[in-house]
């Protein structure tokens, strides 16, 4: 269902020369699906909203709020990198640094499994804020950084040395696109699950389907960072 999005003309210079490109898009969509089905990113909230208001509309309103919060978090994390990438000659160190950052955050989540208590203070009426805070706190947005950097690089391989302004526009455009594709996949997956539980599976599924993803989540961060690091180190040789 997201094929259309992936094939969107991106408005960037460069042909799809890199064989890694397909994998990067795939990774981006996969990360969205993964975040979407994780109850920690909020699909049970949409079920709860639908049931509490006895209306499917409320379910979709909640999904919309969750999507907006997640999108904001993703943009907030990606945009600084879009600016940094203008320093073209620093591209490699930036990519290596970003990989290390993601690995470091994953390791931190592996060691410190406590959940930030501040999240519990967000009222149930402020779902956008909740979704934003959760995506930041758990490193959901950070997980996208290596994919984003990879995509930027793949598109610029053939672009040669562009003017800084054009490069910046391209990078910003890519950040927006990456965020949108990711969030679309996330809301698609979470929304399907929420709807299935709301309409067909029933509330028993909420507790049955809930697995402790803490370790898996932290490991995913480490893994994403490590793969990106390996690619970058290999390329810089």
């Amino acid at each position, binding site marked *: 269902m997201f094929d259309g999005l992936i094939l969107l003309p991106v408005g960037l210079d460069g042909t799809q020369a890199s064989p890694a490109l397909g994998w990067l898009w795939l990774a981006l969509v996969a990360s969205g699906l993964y975040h979407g089905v994780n109850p920690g990113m909020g699909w049970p909230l949409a079920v*709860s909203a639908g049931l509490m208001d006895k209306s499917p509309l409320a379910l979709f309103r909640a999904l919309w709020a969750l999507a907006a919060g997640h999108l904001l978090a993703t943009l907030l994390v990606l945009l600084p990198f879009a600016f940094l990438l203008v320093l073209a000659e620093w591209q490699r160190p930036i990519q290596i640094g970003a990989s290390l950052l993601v690995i470091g955050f994953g390791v931190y989540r592996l060691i410190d499994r406590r*959940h930030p208590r501040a999240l519990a203070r967000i*009222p*149930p009426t402020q779902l956008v804020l909740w979704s934003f805070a959760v995506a930041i706190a758990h490193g959901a947005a950070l997980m996208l950084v290596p994919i984003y950097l990879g995509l930027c690089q793949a598109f610029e391989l053939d672009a040669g040395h562009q003017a800084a302004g054009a490069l910046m526009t391209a990078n910003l455009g890519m950040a927006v696109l990456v965020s949108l594709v990711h969030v679309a996949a996330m809301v698609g997956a979470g929304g399907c699950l929420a709807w299935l539980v709301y309409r067909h599976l029933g509330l028993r599924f909420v*507790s049955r389907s809930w697995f*402790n993803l803490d370790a898996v989540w932290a490991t995913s961060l480490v893994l994403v960072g490590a793969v990106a690091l390996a690619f970058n180190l290999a390329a810089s040789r």
Partner: protein
Amino acid sequence: MTMRPDPTFHASPKLAMEAPAENFAYTLLLSPDFSKPDALAVIDVKPGSPTYSQIVHTVTMPNKGDEFHHFGWNACSSALSPLAGHAFIERRYLIIPGLRSSRIYVIDTKPDPTKAKIHKIIEPEEVFKKTGYSRPHTIHCGPDGIYVSTLGGGGKDGTNGPPGVFIMDCETFEVLGRWEIDRGPQTLHYDFWWNLPRDYMVTSEWALPPQFENGIVPEDLLANKYGHRLHFWDLRARRNVQTIDLGANHQMALEVRPAHDPVREYGFVGVVVDTTNLEASIWTWWREGGKFHAEKTATIPPEPAPKEKLPPLLQGFGAVPPLVTDIDLSMDDRFLYVSCWGTGEMRQYDVSDPRKPKLAGSVHIGGIARRTPHPNGKPFAAGPQMVEISRDGRRVYWTNSLYSTWDDQFYPDGVPGVEVMANVGRNGGLELDKDYFVSFPDGYRAHQIRLEGGDCSTDSFCYPSV
């Protein structure tokens, strides 16, 4: 930390009702003269078991004079809160506060209730130092920690500052600190509960420690100096948003029982005594148009009695007040059980229409003047007090002690601890079970009951029953 949510966590009250029935009942035992350490009794409630209705294990504490009263779980169905997003804790530890000592015990009920043991003891000094409160009372498991209400403020007699609620970590049991940010006019405390998705808390008022620790103070009661207000709070903002005064004559507004189904924005509270006529009353509170409201929806009259049948405290009145000291709401929000500790009656109200409770069942047992024995012929001292309902709503358990010093004033002949159970008909009605009768060791009184896997006054839910 677990890989799956605890199987006793349920998304909705309906799912909690459908879960397997309880096999054990935990009951707090207190030594009213403080000569022995208080204890936790584990009772076999599995029908057909060879030890049915018997104590199968006792955890005796290492201290004396704690005065156990209420207790609760470290975690419950509220852990499935979609906002918390983290349900991987176990319903495993019972948190037992000493109301008189301010000491808190954490009891580990795994791997088996019959092997329950002390896991941790939090000394009173830690509670005083970190919260400025004393005399911890009600425990509720919240999605972000254990909430504990207190009856006393700081200082030796607990009157230095108002009492309130504090939070404990549900895994390390560290006392984290005060809950309130803005308490408004609240100066007294008793019970509290909440509606998690609708984001509000309700608290009630009993009295300050000098008004209860050495017994009820009749002059204070007749001067309407006990609590008579309800406080409504913004749960996440931790602010008092509204206070409703039930009227000064409605003395002691105690147990707060919100509807379990979170779409229902109403609940109940019991008032012990109306000082103008000795009546007890049930009040319904609800939220409408962003405001809370409360009205008296049921009254229970006092029963005249000859002077020689009354304790000195009541002889001047020539009547027994019903003394509604505990209420409990069934998981389907249909039946409200009302303990009349003075007259010796357990009432069952149909509250399908929450503002029009209808008496649906009643059993008499004990009582100041009636002294009704159990159907098995054994005497039942005092009256029905702490009441707990099984999740499926078919069994109602209760004990008979109110509070050490108050027991002695209303029932000077003594209150040996007893726990009984009544079966509930499909459409209401209440009948005492002849085979369920737990007597406790000599010198012990029995207070609150908690049922294995959660009951009707522990778990709170974030999804409606559909």
